[in-house]
C-alpha cells in the first residue's frame, strides 16, 4: 500500500525555544493510505512538530517528503512542495465566499498575470473539493457565516484544491458535534487514499474510530507507536494518560490549548 517516494518521513526532529526543548528527537513516518494520528497530553509538542515541518518554527533534524527536505525552507516554499496544513482555530477568509476561499487556494498554480484578471467560471478542482466536502450548498456564503465544522471542512477543501500531497491537520474535530466528527473522519478516510494524512488530536473517541496508526508524544518525546490496539495496551501510555486504569477511555480535555 505505501509508496515510499510519496511518504513523509520525520527523523530526529528537534525544536527548541530558548532553553526550552519543545520537541526532542522525534521520529515518525506517514504513508499514503493511512490516517496517521499524533496524540499526547497538553504540551507534548504535537503542534510544534507540525509547525516545524511546515516552516512556522525552526527545527533541526530531517523531515523528508519523498526525496525533498522540508526543514529550512520558508513556509510558502514548503507549501509549493505539496505540504498543506490547517490550524487549531479554523482560519478561513471570513469576508470572502466559500467559492473565493477555494479559488484562492487554487491560485498557486496560476501565473502572476492571470491573477490580474477577474474570476470567470469555477475550476474543476474547486468543484471537486466542493463536492468532496459537501459545501456545495453554501458556496456563495461568506466563510465567516459558516458553522465551526463547515469552516474546518472548508480548510480541508482548500488543501484538496491546492493539491496538497501531505495534509497536516491540527485538531480538525475540536468543537464539533458527534455527527460532524463522523463526517470528518469519513472525509479523512477518503482523502487519505492517495495522500499522506497526519492528524493532531486530543479526542480519543475520534482517534479510536479513524486512526490507522498512532504516535503518542509526551513532553516532546515519542512515548509509543503502533496501531490503536497496541498503544491502548501500552502501560506507559496508560500511565501518562490519566495515570490510571480507564486510560484513553474518555475524551481528554477537548479544546485544551497546545504549546504554540
Amino acid at each position, binding site marked *: 500500500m505505501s509508496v515510499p517516494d510519496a511518504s513523509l518521513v520525520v527523523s530526529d526532529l528537534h525544536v527548541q525555544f530558548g532553553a526550552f526543548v519543545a520537541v526532542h528527537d522525534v521520529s515518525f513516518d506517514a504513508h499514503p493510505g493511512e490516517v496517521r494520528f499524533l496524540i499526547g497530553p497538553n504540551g507534548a509538542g504535537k503542534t510544534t512538530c507540525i509547525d516545524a515541518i*511546515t516552516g*512556522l518554527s525552526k527545527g533541526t533534524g530531517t523531515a523528508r517528503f519523498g526525496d525533498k527536505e522540508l526543514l529550512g525552507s*520558508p*513556509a*510558502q516554499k514548503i*507549501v*509549493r512542495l505539496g505540504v*498543506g*496544513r490547517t*490550524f487549531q482555530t479554523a*482560519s*478561513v*477568509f*471570513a*469576508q*470572502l465566499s466559500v467559492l*473565493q476561499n477555494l*479559488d*484562492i*487556494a487554487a*491560485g*498557486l498554480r*496560476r501565473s502572476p498575470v*492571470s*491573477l*490580474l*484578471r*477577474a*474570476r470567470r467560471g469555477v475550476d474543476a478542482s474547486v468543484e471537486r473539493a466542493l463536492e468532496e466536502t459537501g459545501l456545495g*450548498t*453554501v458556496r*456563495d*456564503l*461568506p466563510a465567516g*457565516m459558516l458553522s465551526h465544522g463547515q469552516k474546518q471542512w472548508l480548510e480541508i477543501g*482548500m488543501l484538496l484544491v*491546492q493539491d496538497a500531497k501531505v495534509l497536516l491537520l491540527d485538531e480538525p474535530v475540536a468543537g464539533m458535534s458527534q455527527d460532524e466528527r463522523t463526517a470528518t473522519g469519513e472525509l479523512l478516510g477518503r482523502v487519505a487514499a492517495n495522500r499522506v494524512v497526519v492528524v493532531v488530536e486530543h479526542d480519543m473517541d475520534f482517534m479510536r474510530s479513524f486512526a490507522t496508526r498512532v504516535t503518542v508524544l509526551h513532553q516532546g518525546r515519542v512515548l509509543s507507536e503502533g496501531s490503536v490496539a497496541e498503544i491502548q495496551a501500552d502501560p506507559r501510555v496508560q500511565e501518562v494518560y490519566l495515570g490510571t486504569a480507564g486510560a484513553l477511555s474518555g475524551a481528554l480535555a477537548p479544546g485544551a490549548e497546545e504549546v504554540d
Partner: protein
Amino acid sequence: MTKFTTRLPLIGIGVFAVLLLVVAPAVLSEHWISNLGKYCCLAIAAVGIGLAWGRGGMLVMGQGVFFGLGAYAMAMHLTLETAGPGALPGFMILYDPLAPLPAFWEPFRSEVFTLVAIVLLPVIVSAILGYALFKRRVKGAYFAILTQALAVALAVLISSTIRETGGDTGLSNFKYFFGYVLNDEANKLMVYLIAAALLVVCLLAVWQFNRSRFGELLVATRDAEERVRFLGYDPANIKLFAFVVAAVMASIGGAMFVPIVGIITPQEIGASASILMIAGVALGGRASLFGPALGAMAIGWGQSSLGSSWPEGWIYILGLIFIFVILFLPMGLSSLFDRAKGLIRRSSDEPGPATPELREVVK
C-alpha cells in the same frame, strides 16, 4: 440583477467621468476648475491609498514621499522649460549665477525622461522600501511610523537644500507645460482635463484590481496573512504590488498637482500633508471604490474654502469630523450607502428570512 450589481461600479465610474469631464467644464468658472483639478490630484493619490490601506491593510502614512517624487520631477522639468534651453532656473541664478546646474537636474530637461521618471521613480523607491519592510514582516503601527518618518525626512531634505531644490520656497512660476503656455485659459482647461481623466483611469484600474483574483488575494492577506502563506503565496509580494501601485498613483497625482496649482513646496509632501491624504480616505471609506476619491476631494474642498476663510475653525471641524467618523462610521461615509442598501433590501422582501445570509442557507 447580479449582472446589474456587478456592473454598478462601472456605471458609477462612467457617471463620475461625465461629471468631471463634461459637466464640470461647462458649469464651473476658471477658478473652480483649477480648484477641482487640485482635488482630482489629491483624489488620484487617495485612490492608491484606498488600495494599499483599505484593501491591503497597509496604513501608508507617508504617501507625501511619492506625491513629492512625482511633483518635484514635474516641477523640475517645468522650471527648466521656463528657464529655456541651457539656462539656469531663476532661483539658482539668485544664489550664484555662475554655478553649474546640479547633475540630477540635467536629465529633467527631457520631456520623455520626466514622464518616465514620474512613473519609474516611485516604482523604484517603493519597491526597495516595500521589499525591505514586507520581507521582514514589518506591519501595523511600525509600518505606519516608518513611512511617516520617510515623508518627514524627504520634506526636511528639500527644505535644507535650498540651492538645489528651492528649499521651503519651493518651485513655482512655471510658464510652460510641455510647450503649452500655462497662463492660457484653454490650456488650463486641458491640464485639468488630463488630471480628471487620470483620476478616472486610476479608478478603473483599482476597480479591475478589486474584482480580480489579485484583489481577493489582497483582502485575504489583509485579513489572515499567515493563512495566505500556507496557501503557497508569499504575502510580501502581494503587499508589495499594492504598495507600488499606490506609490505610482501618488506620484501621478503629485505630477499633475504642479501645473494646476503652480507651486510645490516641502509643506505639500511632509507629515501633515501625508496625514491629510489619509484623512480624506478614512472619511470617504477606505475599502470602497469611490470613498477614497470622494473623501479626498471633500477634504481638499474644505481645505481651500473653509481652510482659507476660517483657518482656526477648519482644523477643529476636521478633527470633529474625524472623531465622528471613527466612532460611528469606522468604514467611512461610503458605509452609509451600504447600510441604506441593506435596509431597502430587508424591507422589500419581508416574508423570507430577514437577512440575505439566512435566505442563502434556506435555499
